[in-house]
């Protein structure tokens, strides 16, 4: 059995799922390929991106932050201004349009921070689909506003009590639902993860970020950035923005993982950062770097940001890292919280805690660069959903 599109990224990726799901993956790939070659589908997607999501999202020059750090000039790609408050809507709408094409009526989705759940619920409401979102009970507690939003949008939110009660377990439950109801249900996977063709589909729908950003950089700054920085949980916002620059060899690409309480503490989600616990393995249908114990059991992860709190990384990132096209580092909870505050104070923007990890790397990196150099940061989402967490972490001042 061969696939229409490449199903691996170097040695990573693949389709490690039960046989019951294989026909659905084959159908999905076929539908995606036919949709992408269909001008009517692309026109509908572009129209929704403009009229519903509010694209193109702006590129903002962060003047005061650049001055404060005293090095490179910093530009923010404002995915926080996309409808629903994060980049997740790009992929959710794209896949929901595919669902309509396939004639399915129901979607299931997993969510960590709740952003993908909200985006899926929104796309389902817009297109008249039934929507069930699986969310770990730990994440439900720390992202309460998003749970309420999903319910308002007509989705059913099912708490997941198994395992670590976070994103990993929500994915398990979404897959179990999908395998049970596969004939009329689509699994609307929210990150550049999972079995082929998901990592490719998600990248393609998120590549709008990179295309816009490249054009905007040339227009506003008159040049390409020296460095592009994005946070990496599963890695969908990062792969989206990287895809616009991956062929520009002069542009350095940096992904920022969740350093949690620090790599040495063992409480983190830095798949590339922990040489001891991160090994190539197979989880949720894909081969990639996975935090695991020596017996191959998936490790518990920790991050202040629910959206980065996951034991594996998208397979294309594993390939980009191996061939040194992209570099990966991490920011701790503390660094992310401090970056969160700095962006609030200097730019009047409240970033998501996930995106704050990317800003934390900017704070380290910009001062080491010259003033005529340029950093582009993908500000993947806004931080309204995180206020409860931040208040708890840094107190009411």
């Amino acid at each position, binding site marked *: *059995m061969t696939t229409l599109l490449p199903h691996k990224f170097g040695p990573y990726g*693949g389709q*490690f799922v039960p046989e*019951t799901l294989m026909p659905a993956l084959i159908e999905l790939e076929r539908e995606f390929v036919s949709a992408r070659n269909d001008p009517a589908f692309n026109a509908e997607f572009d129209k929704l991106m403009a009229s519903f999501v509010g694209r193109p999202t702006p590129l903002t020059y962060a003047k005061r932050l650049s001055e404060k750090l005293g090095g490179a000039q910093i530009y923010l790609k404002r995915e926080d201004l996309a409808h629903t408050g994060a980049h997740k809507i790009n992929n959710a709408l794209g896949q929901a349009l595919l669902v309509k094409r396939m004639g399915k009526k129901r979607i299931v989705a997993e969510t960590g921070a709740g952003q993908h759940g909200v985006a899926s619920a929104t796309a389902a409401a817009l297109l008249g689909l039934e929507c069930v979102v699986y969310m770990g009970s730990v994440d439900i507690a720390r992202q309460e506003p998003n749970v309420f939003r999903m319910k308002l949008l007509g989705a059913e939110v099912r708490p997941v009590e198994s395992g670590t009660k976070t994103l*990993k*377990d929500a994915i398990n439950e979404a897959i179990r639902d999908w*395998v049970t109801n596969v004939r009329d249900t689509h699994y609307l996977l929210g990150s550049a993860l999972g079995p082929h063709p998901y990592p490719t589909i998600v990248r393609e729908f998120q590549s709008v970020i990179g295309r816009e950003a490249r054009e905007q950089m040339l227009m506003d700054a008159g040049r390409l950035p020296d460095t592009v920085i994005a946070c990496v949980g599963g890695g969908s916002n990062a792969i989206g923005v990287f895809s616009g620059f991956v062929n520009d060899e002069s542009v350095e690409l940096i992904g920022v993982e969740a350093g949690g309480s620090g790599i040495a503490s063992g409480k983190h989600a830095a798949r590339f950062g922990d040489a001891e616990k991160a090994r190539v393995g*197979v989880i949720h249908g894909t081969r990639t770097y996975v935090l695991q114990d020596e017996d191959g*059991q998936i490790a518990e992860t920790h991050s202040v940001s629910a959206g980065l709190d996951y034991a594996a990384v998208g397979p294309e990132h594993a390939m980009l890292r191996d061939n040194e096209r992209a570099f990966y580092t991490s920011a701790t909870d503390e660094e992310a919280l401090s970056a969160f505050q700095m962006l609030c104070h200097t730019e009047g923007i409240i970033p998501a805690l996930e995106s704050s990890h990317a800003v934390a790397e900017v704070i380290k990196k910009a001062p080491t660069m010259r003033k005529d150099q340029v950093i582009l940061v993908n500000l993947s989402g806004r931080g309204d959903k995180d206020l409860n967490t931040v208040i708890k972490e840094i107190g009411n001042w």
Partner: protein
Amino acid sequence: MNRLESAFQNKPIFMPYFPLGYPDLETSIDVIEALAKNGADLIEVGLSFSDPLADGPVIQQATQVALEKGITVKKSLEAVKELRKRGVTIPLILMGYYNPMLAYGLEKFIRDAKEAGADGFIIPDLPLEEAEEFTSVAGDMPLIQMLAPTSPDERMEAIARNAKGFIYLVSVTGVTGERREISNDLGSLINRVRAHTSAPVCVGFGIGTPEQAQQVGQLADGVIVGSACVKMIGSSPKPVETAKQFAAEFRGALR
């Protein structure tokens, strides 16, 4: 004739599943021995994984307990060796997810499993598309192929063509666990599979009672009982006694 082939001399066969390490390692070895010596024709010996995405709540919970009690791949293989030492002669098929096998090292895993006395593998997250990495180093140890109600004919043909040992036919779309009724379509599903292979066809997922087993046994070459077996034995104050009764009862229903 190897152990696996001889197991299918008298059909339909009874094939229970039980995870090593549940409710603790010693009890699980006793339970599997009891199943083997009281009517099971073949046992699916479960290896635990933290994220068993093809399993329903009963097996999830049992394998979670096994992990909490410290089960590992290494201990599981030692337990298989112990079962052979105790005179268990029926085929033992290791059923587990791919990642712990990769972490152990595929070649080493297959060699050690064979040495311990296992007869083959069932890996639910390793479909045809990804199986070659495993089968290329598995030698004469069979990787049991799975088919599902959603498999179209061309996939059935491709999968069944290289089937070794037997075909594991998933009777329902879904995860493991008991269902109230056996699907009316099971007969035609089995006929579709038989059109592509002469290998024995064993049916699993959703079979929970001796009556259901009997019903399926009239159509298939083997009946796989997982969640019901784990639940019944796991909730019993005398697991080994319950295992003996369970095996005898299902075996009785089948032949």
